[in-house]
C-alpha cells in the first residue's frame, strides 16, 4: 500500500478519489478546448456584418453546444475534479463515502458528454439553445435527432451529477476527522456541500421536463403541444427551476476556491468566516426562488414579476457580503501575488461587474429592454468566465503542487492571467454596448450600419487573445508536468488539512487520522496525531461501475436506434448493478 500501480486498466477500474479527480480534470480540459473552438467560430462569424463563414444552421448548433459544453462539461466537471481531489483531503478522510459510486458518476458524465457531442457526426447537434425552449423542440419544428441527443445525453450526465452530489453530501456529513466540526470546514468544502444540495434538488425538475419532452417527441403526449392544450411555458418554469440554481452550481465552487486561496496568500484567516459560510447558504437558498426572472418577458403579470424582481435583488446582499469579506481578508495582509492569487483577485473584480449588471436586469422593466440582447450575454460571461473560469484557474495553480508534486511556472502563470484578463474584458465588455445598441442574441449575422460593428470587431480580437491565453496555459501545464517533483507538503504555507500530507498524497492520504483543534489547523498547531498505528483497508479497484454506466450508455443509444439495443443496454446495466452489489469491497 502507498504507491499506485500504473497502466490503463488501473485508471479504468480506479475507485480512488484522487485519480477520479484527475480524470474529471483532464476531461473538462478537453471539453474546454472543444467549447473554446466553438466560441472562436461564433466570434469569427460575428466579426463582420453579413459574414458567410457559418450558415445559420451551423451557427445555431455551435452556440447551443458552446453553452451546454461550457456549463455542463467544463465548469461542472472541473469543479467536480476539485471536489474529488480536495474535499476528502480537507476533511481528513481516506476516500469518499462510496468510492465505486464515485467512479460511476465519472463514467456517466463522460459518456453523457461524448454521447451528446457525437450528435455532430450523426445528423447535427441540437440547435435550440442550451435552454431548449418548447415548442421549438417539438418533433414538428426539430425533426432531426439533435434534440433527442440533448435529452438522452443530459440524462446520463445529469444522473452522474446527482449521484456524485449525493456521495459528497454523505462524505462531508460523515467522514470528517475528529474535531473537524462544520464551522471548522474549509470554505471550499463548505461550498462543495452547498453545491451538492443544489445539484440533488435542481436536477430532478430538469429530468422530469426532459422526460416530458421525450414523451412528446416519441410517444405523442401533449405536455408542450399548444394544439392539445399543453402550455410551452411549463418547460420554461421547470427548466429555470433547474437552470437558475445551476448558475449557483457553477459559481459557488469558484467562490469556495478563492475563499481558500485569498487567506493563504494574504497570510490572514478568512475575514468573517461564519458570515461567508451563511452567505453561501443564503445564495443557494434564494437561488430556488428567482427562476422566473428568466421569464420577465413571458408575461406572468406584474405581481409575479415584482416578487421575482425583489427576490433577485436580495441575492445581491449575500454576494456583496462575500466580496467585502474577501477584500477585508486582503486588507492589511502580507499579500503574495502568485498566479493563484492573481486569478482570485481577478474573480473578485470581474464578478462585481457581472453581479452589478445582474442587479440591473433583476428589475423587470429594465430587463424587458435588455432581454435577448448582447447585454445579457455580456452579463453572464462576466459571471461565468470572470467568475467561474478565473476561480477554477486559481484552483488549478493553487492545488497543482498538491496533485502532481510539481509547480506550474509562475511567470507563465502571470502571462496567462494578464492575457486572459485583457482578453475577456475586450471580448465581453463591448457586448454591453452592442446589446444596448440592440444587437440580438442567437442571431447568426446582421446587416451593416446598425451601429455595433466595431463592438463586434473588438470582441473578436479579445476572443483571439483569450484563446492565446489558454494556449499559454496548456504549454505551461505540459512543461510543468515534465519538471522534477520538488513540491513539499505545504509549499504555499496554507492553513488547511490537505497541506499537512505529502505532495502528491499517498493512496491512503493520511497515515494516521488527524484530530483537528482549530479552523486553520496548520497555522495554529491545530492538528493532533494519534499515537497508535491505525488499521484500515482501502477499497479494491472495480470495473462494475464502468459496466453499469456502459449499459446505460447503450440503453440511451438504443432509444435512438431501436428497442433491441435498449434491452441489451438495460440487461448490461442490471448485470453491472448486481456484480457491483455482491463484489467484496476490501
Amino acid at each position: 500500500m502507498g504507491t499506485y500501480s500504473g497502466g490503463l486498466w488501473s485508471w479504468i477500474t480506479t475507485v480512488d478519489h484522487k485519480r477520479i479527480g484527475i480524470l474529471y480534470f483532464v476531461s473538462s480540459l478537453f471539453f474546454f478546448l472543444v467549447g473554446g473552438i466553438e466560441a472562436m467560430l461564433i466570434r469569427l462569424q460575428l466579426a463582420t456584418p453579413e459574414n458567410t463563414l457559418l450558415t445559420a444552421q451551423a451557427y445555431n448548433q455551435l452556440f447551443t453546444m458552446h453553452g451546454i459544453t461550457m456549463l455542463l462539461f467544463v465548469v461542472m466537471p472541473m469543479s467536480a475534479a476539485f471536489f474529488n481531489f480536495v474535499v476528502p483531503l480537507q476533511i481528513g478522510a481516506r476516500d469518499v463515502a462510496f468510492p465505486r459510486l464515485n467512479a460511476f458518476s465519472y463514467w456517466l458524465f463522460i459518456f453523457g458528454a461524448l454521447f451528446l457531442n457525437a450528435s455532430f457526426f450523426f445528423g447535427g447537434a441540437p440547435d435550440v439553445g442550451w435552454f431548449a425552449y418548447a415548442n421549438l423542440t417539438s418533433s414538428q419544428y426539430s425533426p432531426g435527432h439533435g434534440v433527442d441527443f440533448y435529452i438522452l445525453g443530459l440524462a446520463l450526465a445529469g444522473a452522474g451529477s446527482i449521484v456524485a452530489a449525493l456521495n459528497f453530501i454523505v462524505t462531508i456529513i460523515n467522514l470528517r476527522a475528529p474535531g473537524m466540526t462544520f464551522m471548522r470546514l474549509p470554505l471550499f468544502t463548505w461550498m462543495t456541500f452547498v453545491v451538492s444540495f443544489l445539484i440533488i434538488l435542481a436536477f430532478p425538475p430538469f429530468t422530469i421536463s426532459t422526460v416530458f419532452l421525450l414523451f412528446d417527441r416519441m410517444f405523442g403526449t401533449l405536455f408542450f403541444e399548444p394544439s392539445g392544450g399543453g402550455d410551452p411555458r411549463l418547460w420554461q418554469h421547470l427548466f429555470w427551476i433547474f437552470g437558475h440554481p445551476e448558475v449557483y452550481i457553477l459559481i459557488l465552487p469558484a467562490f469556495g476556491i478563492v475563499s481558500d486561496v485569498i487567506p493563504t496568500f494574504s497570510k490572514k484567516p478568512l475575514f468573517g468566516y461564519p458570515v461567508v459560510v451563511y452567505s453561501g447558504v443564503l445564495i443557494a437558498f434564494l437561488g430556488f426562488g428567482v427562476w422566473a426572472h428568466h421569464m420577465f418577458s413571458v408575461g406572468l403579470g406584474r405581481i409575479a414579476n415584482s416578487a421575482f424582481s425583489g427576490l433577485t435583488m436580495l441575492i445581491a446582499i449575500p454576494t456583496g457580503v462575500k466580496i467585502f469579506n474577501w477584500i477585508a481578508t486582503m486588507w492589511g495582509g502580507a499579500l503574495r501575488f502568485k498566479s493563484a492569487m492573481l486569478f482570485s483577485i481577478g474573480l473578485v473584480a470581474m464578478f462585481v461587474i457581472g453581479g452589478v449588471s445582474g442587479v440591473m436586469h433583476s428589475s423587470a422593466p429594465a430587463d424587458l429592454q435588455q432581454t435577448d440582447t448582447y447585454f445579457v450575454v455580456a452579463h453572464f460571461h462576466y459571471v461565468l468566465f470572470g467568475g467561474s473560469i478565473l476561480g477554477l484557474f486559481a484552483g488549478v495553480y493553487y492545488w497543482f503542487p498538491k496533485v502532481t508534486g510539481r509547480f506550474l511556472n509562475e511567470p507563465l502563470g502571470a502571462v496567462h492571467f494578464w492575457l486572459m484578463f485583457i482578453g475577456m474584458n475586450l471580448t465581453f465588455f463591448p457586448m454591453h454596448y452592442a446589446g444596448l445598441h440592440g444587437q440580438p442574441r442567437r442571431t447568426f449575422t446582421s446587416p451593416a450600419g446598425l451601429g455595433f460593428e466595431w463592438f463586434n470587431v473588438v470582441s473578436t480580437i479579445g476572443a483571439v487573445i483569450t484563446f492565446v491565453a489558454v494556449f499559454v496555459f496548456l504549454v505551461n501545464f505540459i512543461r510543468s508536468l515534465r519538471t522534477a517533483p520538488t513540491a513539499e507538503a505545504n509549499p504555499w504555507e496554507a492553513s488547511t488539512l490537505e497541506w499537512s500530507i505529502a505532495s502528491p498524497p499517498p493512496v491512503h492520504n493520511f497515515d494516521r487520522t488527524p484530530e483537528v483543534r482549530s479552523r486553520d489547523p496548520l497555522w495554529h498547531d491545530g492538528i493532533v496525531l494519534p499515537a497508535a498505528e491505525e488499521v484500515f483497508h482501502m477499497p479494491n479497484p472495480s470495473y462494475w461501475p464502468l459496466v453499469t454506466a456502459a449499459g446505460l450508455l447503450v440503453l440511451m443509444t438504443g432509444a435512438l436506434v431501436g428497442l433491441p439495443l435498449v434491452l441489451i443496454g438495460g440487461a448490461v446495466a442490471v448485470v453491472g448493478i448486481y456484480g457491483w452489489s455482491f463484489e467484496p469491497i476490501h
Partner: protein
Amino acid sequence: MERTSTGVANEKVLMWTFIGSECMLFGSLIATFLAYRDRSLVGPFEEELLNIPFITVTTFVLLMSSLMMVLALSAVQRGDRRGSGLFLLLTAVLGLIFLGGQVFEFSHFAHEGLGLGRNLFSGTFYLTTGFHGAHVAIGVIWLLTLWTLALRGRLGPEKSVKVEVAGLYWHFVDVVWIVLFTVIYLMSGAAAV
C-alpha cells in the same frame, strides 16, 4: 459499521439525501399534474375514469406492505431468520399486488380510449403514476434480492442496515403514493362510492 462523524451509517445518510432529491422529482410531476388539471381538450376525462373504491383497496394493500417492511426489519435485527424471509417476501408480494392493480387500471383506461397521447390528463396521469409504479417495481426487485439473501442465511443482524435502507426507500415510495392518491384520485371529483 465503520466509524462515521455522526454515528449514522453512510448508507442511511445516502438514502435520506436521495429521498430529498426524489421529493423534487415527484414534486415536479405533481405540480405539472395540478397545473394541467381540467385542461384536457377532449375526453375521456378524469372524473369519468378514475375508480376511487378500487384504488382505495390497492392503496390499502400498499400501506400494509409498509407494515410488513417494519416487521421484516425487526426480524432481521433480532436474527429471526424465518421471520426475515417471510416478511420480506410478504412486503414484495403486496407491492406486486399493487402493481397488478396498476396494470389492470392502465389497461382498463386504454380500453376506454385513454391512449398515452389522448389529452393532457392521459400524459400527466400515466407519467406520474408510472414513475411511482417504476419505483415500486425497483423496490420489489430489491426486496426479492434481500429475500434470497435471507433464505441463504446471509442476512444476519450485522447486515440489518441493508434492510433498513431498503425500508426507508419503501416507506418513502408509500408516502408518495398517499400524496398521489389524494391529489389524483380524491381531488378528482370522481365518485367516491
